[in-house]
């Protein structure tokens, strides 16, 4: 069944990620040594046969736009379909920032008018997962649903999510946004399937009346009028946008064999913008254990239980443990990096250390900082 895609990559997630999203959208966060978060949503769309995708963004979209500067890496950029980066804009009547998820789509409604695919898949840009949207659409059609919400059964952090309550047929009977005392375990993971015309009709009714949120005003607000169903995601799913601890944990998950097997060793693959770096280089002093090393990196020291991105240089006698070192970091001789997230191009001079508290509360060093 044919569908167009919409990826919500708007925000900095209310500042929950501190300096990591000070200058980038959460969807542009680097993940797993070589990806950015949005690669997962884009690859899922592309791998599900969706050829036309809009990325809605407004917050610090430079690094995101840089990443999306060519759409060919995800197999978009064709005569049929393509990748559209949509932002707030100015007209004679004025301009406004996106006031919510529904408003963001409403402000770019011509994208929906100008499509003829019967369905729309809406996904968030900051989640790490692999999903076949064709299956969700087939389920949506089979149930005769107006809206299908993808959920995952979770044990922890439920109060950070929208929680679905469903009947036996998986029809939505209740939905609580970030409840303090959750009554169910089915957390919405921000992926929706909806008919294109229905979405247009709903937005035209809601947004001019000041109702700007997909979740609050449509899923919750119209729960009784619409047939809303839940679809369970059974594979790996994690969001880097929930907070620094979630960002840290998601990266560290790539050290687990089952996670790598799901993303790396099983078709379809996750695509990203190629950087054409040479292989990771292990010199004589290298001692690496339980870590992933990005291409173009040169290792002279010790790395343990860490995620090292591309073009990182680790000097002799330096030690990195339980840390995330983003692209281009340079670690001097004898440095110790522990429980830390080093944003891109951080320099740690010889003999200096960066030590955080724990995986739950790692120290974050902002982009291009020098530790001296």
């Amino acid at each position, binding site marked *: 069944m044919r569908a167009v895609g919409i990826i919500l990559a708007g925000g900095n997630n209310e500042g929950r990620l501190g300096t990591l999203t000070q200058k980038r959208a959460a969807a542009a966060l680097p993940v797993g040594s070589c990806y950015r978060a949005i690669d997962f949503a884009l690859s899922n769309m592309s791998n599900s046969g969706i050829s036309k995708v809009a990325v809605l963004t407004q917050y610090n979209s430079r690094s995101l736009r840089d990443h999306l500067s060519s759409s060919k890496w995800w197999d978009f950029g064709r005569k049929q379909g393509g990748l559209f980066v949509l932002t707030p804009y100015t007209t004679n009547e004025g301009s406004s920032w996106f006031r919510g998820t529904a408003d963001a789509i409403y402000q770019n409604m011509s994208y929906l008018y100008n499509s003829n695919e019967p369905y729309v898949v809406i996904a968030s840009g900051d989640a790490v997962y692999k999903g076949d949207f064709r299956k969700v659409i087939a389920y949506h059609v089979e149930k005769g649903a107006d809206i299908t919400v993808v959920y995952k059964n979770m044990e922890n952090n439920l109060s950070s999510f929208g929680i679905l309550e469903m009947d036996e047929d998986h029809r939505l009977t209740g939905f609580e946004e970030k409840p303090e005392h959750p009554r169910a375990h089915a957390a919405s993971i921000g992926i929706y399937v909806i008919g294109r015309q229905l979405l247009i009709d709903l937005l035209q009714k809601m947004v001019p009346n000041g109702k700007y949120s997909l979740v609050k005003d449509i899923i919750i607000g119209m729960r009784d009028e619409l047939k809303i169903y839940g679809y369970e995601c059974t594979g790996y799913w994690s969001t880097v946008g929930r907070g620094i601890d979630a960002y840290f944990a998601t990266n560290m998950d790539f050290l687990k064999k089952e996670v790598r097997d799901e993303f*790396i060793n099983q078709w379809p693959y996750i695509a990203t913008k190629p950087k*054409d770096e*040479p292989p*990771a*280089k*292990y010199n004589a002093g290298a001692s690496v*254990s339980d870590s992933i090393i*990005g291409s173009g990196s040169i290792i002279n020291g010790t790395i343990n239980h860490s995620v090292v991105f591309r073009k990182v240089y680790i000097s002799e006698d330096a030690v990195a443990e339980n840390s995330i070192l983003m692209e281009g970091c340079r670690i001097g001789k004898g440095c110790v990096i522990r429980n830390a997230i080093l944003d891109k191009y951080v320099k740690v001079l010889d003999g200096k250390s960066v030590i955080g508290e724990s995986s739950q509360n790692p120290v974050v060093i902002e982009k291009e900082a020098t530790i001296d």
Partner: protein
Amino acid sequence: MRRKEMVAMLLAGGQGSRLGILTRNIAKPAVTFGGEYRIIDFPLSNCINSGVDTVGVLTQYQPLRLNQHIGIGIPWDLDKKNGGVTILAPHVKGGGEEGEWFMGTANAIYQNMDFMDSYNPEYVLILSGDHIYKMDYAQMLDFHKKKNAAATIAVLEVPMEEASRFGIMNTEGDDRIYEFEEKPKEPKSNLASMGIYIFTWSRLKEALVEDSKIHPDSDFGKHIIPRMLEEGQSLYAYRFHGYWKDVGTIESYWQANMDLIKPLPEFNLYEDFWKIYTNNDRQNPQYTAPGAVVKESLACEGSEIYGTVKHSIIGPGVVVKKGAVIEDSIIMADTAIEEDVKIYRTIIDENCAIGAGASIGVGEDIPNETKPKIYNTGITVIGTHSVVPAGVSVGKNCVIYGKTEIEDYPDGRLESGKTVMREVFER
């Protein structure tokens, strides 16, 4: 087509037979290098880095892998509306009934004059897909223009005692060439041809047309260069200073790969300037496990290392399981090394499976019995899609190709210098 100042013609049709089993199914330019690259990536990247955006790639021997690799040229930014990369294969000419193979290097260009004429270039750059180097062809073109030359030949200053292995340019004081000698017994100069030429197209075209009347196997070194010299045309030697390796033999191929491992390699891939691009659709994390030892080695994207790797190159998607030891070896893409395998000084091509506990590259250094000229420096070579059963022992200078069974190893051993060839089953 819009006019192009210079069009590159890349000769990629050769087998490179001295690479033995490595070029059984693929042309030499498609052979993997440095883990993630193929040899042709170097001239192709040099082209785009030099601003040469129109490249004809001439294929003949086993072109499939090369065609798949090049595609429409996206990895090198050679997917262009005007120009870009074009694969030129031998074909049946209009009015003819039978096709013609490319009979020589110059003959291949002669047969594709239409391609060049469609861009009406001022100059033509002739390249081969056999060498590892970084070179700015734009500087060479400046030299060619400054000298107002009919042809410019890139040369490398080699040690005089090695000069008799090369095609040598004998020059006058200003590097104008007065004589070309192929592998001279008593060399007069040490300027070795690198197989890189810039011709003023009108001059080359004339020479190609005239020479085709006498030599159906027209060759640049044998015919075109001597002919132009005889005619008194101005040919110049352009001195190249830098790393340049002909990876034509198993030993030189192995050595050039190992050169990349040195702490400060003479040929440095780790600089942003003059990037080498390749077609790599998988950009995956490379994982090194607890207990693994990886030293003096390169490890490509998507590889997983649980064992010990020293002074070796591990290709994309390779898995090295626990207890395995790899030393002084090249393991190409997607090969699986099972537990407790020992591998010394061996080249293993793509998509192989090495069974648990096998030892490879152990024993006496006896040259290969069947092809002693190719395999004689102690390196054992295993061809693409091969399977080596668990527990066997393999000597030095051995060749293994295809899905071998335990019966192929008498007493569980393949002695040094032996060859075993079986059918390949694509995995």
